[in-house]
């Protein structure tokens, strides 16, 4: 009875999504700390050369979840798949003497080459930007730190926007704000999109649990993406044994040229 009363009193706050709601003390109901478990059917994804992109499903469960908060949808889950990190350089073209050329460039430190996000709703309505920036969740909140000193901070913003836009355009960065669905009261399923041009290497699946807009716990799980097939063997050879690879290229050319001169010889 007392709990019901509390619910009725609390509802207006919760519907408004006011952060103040999170601070309301909840007594014995929130005594145990919520936990989060995730799992995938595989820890390795083999991608063949005809790969056109796919969905990766991550299952997860909330433990010790507060029934009441569950019922009113105060738990939010965000699942991300972060690709291997590398430097990324954004360049800007300008017209110089009638010709378009790269005039400015900015290199960002160690950013994920790919990033796929699934969430229960728009992440910006889950939490406020500053705290999302802190934990680096969401395409707009990833840390993009330029290498070296850039005096003009307006330029940094401009290049960051361009970077995010280009990554979203070529599909390496994706977001699906309804990609996480609760299949039962505490069990959820997240569908992450793997782009066709997904880089190979160590990826990281990260799941974040938010309660009333506060990050309360997170889990992570490595996922290896391996490209298979003859094309990948060629790429590996080109990078791991470049001299032998170059020699093979020349050899093919010699055989082709020589062969043609024998086959088509007139006399």
């Amino acid at each position, binding site marked *: 009875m007392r709990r019901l009363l509390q619910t009725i009193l609390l509802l207006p706050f919760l519907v408004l999504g006011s952060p103040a709601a999170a601070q309301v003390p909840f007594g014995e109901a929130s005594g145990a700390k919520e936990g989060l478990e995730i799992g995938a059917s595989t820890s390795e994804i083999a991608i063949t*050369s*005809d790969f056109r992109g796919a969905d990766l499903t991550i299952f997860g469960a909330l433990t010790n979840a507060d029934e009441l908060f569950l019922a009113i949808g105060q738990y939010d889950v965000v699942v991300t798949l972060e690709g291997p990190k*590398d*430097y*990324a*350089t*954004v*360049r*800007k*073209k*300008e*017209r110089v003497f*009638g*010709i*378009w*050329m*790269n005039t400015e*460039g*900015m*290199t960002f430190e160690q950013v994920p*080459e790919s990033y796929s996000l699934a969430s229960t709703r728009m992440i910006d309505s889950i939490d406020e930007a500053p705290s999302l920036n802190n934990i680096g969740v969401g395409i707009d909140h990833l840390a993009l730190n330029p*290498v*070296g000193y850039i005096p003009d901070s307006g330029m940094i913003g401009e*290049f960051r926007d*361009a*970077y995010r*836009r*280009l*990554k979203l355009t070529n599909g390496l960065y994706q977001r699906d704000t309804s990609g996480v669905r609760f299949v039962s009261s505490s069990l959820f399923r997240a569908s992450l999109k793997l782009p066709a*041009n997904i880089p190979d290497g160590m990826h990281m699946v990260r799941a974040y649990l938010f309660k009333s807009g506060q990050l309360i716990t997170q889990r992570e799980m490595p996922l290896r993406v391996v490209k298979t097939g003859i*094309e*990948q063997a*060629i*790429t590996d050879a*080109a*990078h791991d044994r*470049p*001299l032998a*690879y*170059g*020699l*093979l*290229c*020349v050899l*093919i*050319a*010699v055989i*082709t*040229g*020589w*062969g*043609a*001169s024998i086959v*088509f010889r007139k006399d």
Partner: protein
Amino acid sequence: MTVYLPIAELSVNIFIILGMGAAVGFLSGMFGVGGGFLITPLLIFYNIPPVVAVATGANQVVASSISGAITHFRRGTLDMKLGSVLLVGGLAGATAGVWVFSWLRRIGQLDLFISVLYVVLLGSIGTLMLQESVRAMRRAKNNQPLPLKRPGQHNWVHRLPLKMRFKKSKIYLSAIPIVGLGFGIGVLTSIMGVGGGFIMVPAMIYLLRIPTNVVVGTSLFQIIFVTAYTTMVQAATNYSVDIVLASILMVAGVIGAQYGVRVGQKLRGEQLRALLALLVLAVGIRLAIGLIVTPDDVYSVAAGGMSY
């Protein structure tokens, strides 16, 4: 039918690449050129990254030059000694060229530099060839005799020191301009993915006054080694030789060349040169348009690579 190019990292229609290779092979057989200066821009037009287009173009030239060089070797119209001196310069030039190539790539100006270099070279050579062939056609129409050649004429090149005797070519010439020419062509090979025959042949004839009969065979000889070397160095430093793309181009190219040779023998020299000049100019103009037209997106992103 699509085929995935592992180094260019994109899927292409195999028939378009085959067609490109065959067409360029046909033209190279018809005009007696290597075809690198056509294949590289065509690949760029087909959205192959310029880095890959240049390195793969050099690889393709190896194949297209070999059968020609073999023919000249059999006929005895190949000066090995002259070719070797050219090669010394060529290898040095190719090394320097790859270094410049990597540096331009690092500062993000490679694509622009390749295009500008192509526009300048194709534009000037196309114009010169067109003028020359139109003049020749007019002369033929008016039945004027060819102006007399003056083989004994010497220029500043022949006053340079370090003279060497080239028996097969029957010339006595300083090694400096030969190495210099080889060097320049070597640089072009690694930056533009061309054999450079279309520059080397006129330079050898008009500047070094080397007898015409050995010029083509000797230039092909040096082109084979410089392009093979460039392929190796590009593979080792920029990882940009696409073996799948190169193989398709080479096979289509050598077959196309055989038919090109037959057609070329039926056409008159000056008409042939005028056609080639128009083709060269067309490719140059198309590249120039690409430089001037406002790009879809002024921003671009490159993974890795540090820019300062």
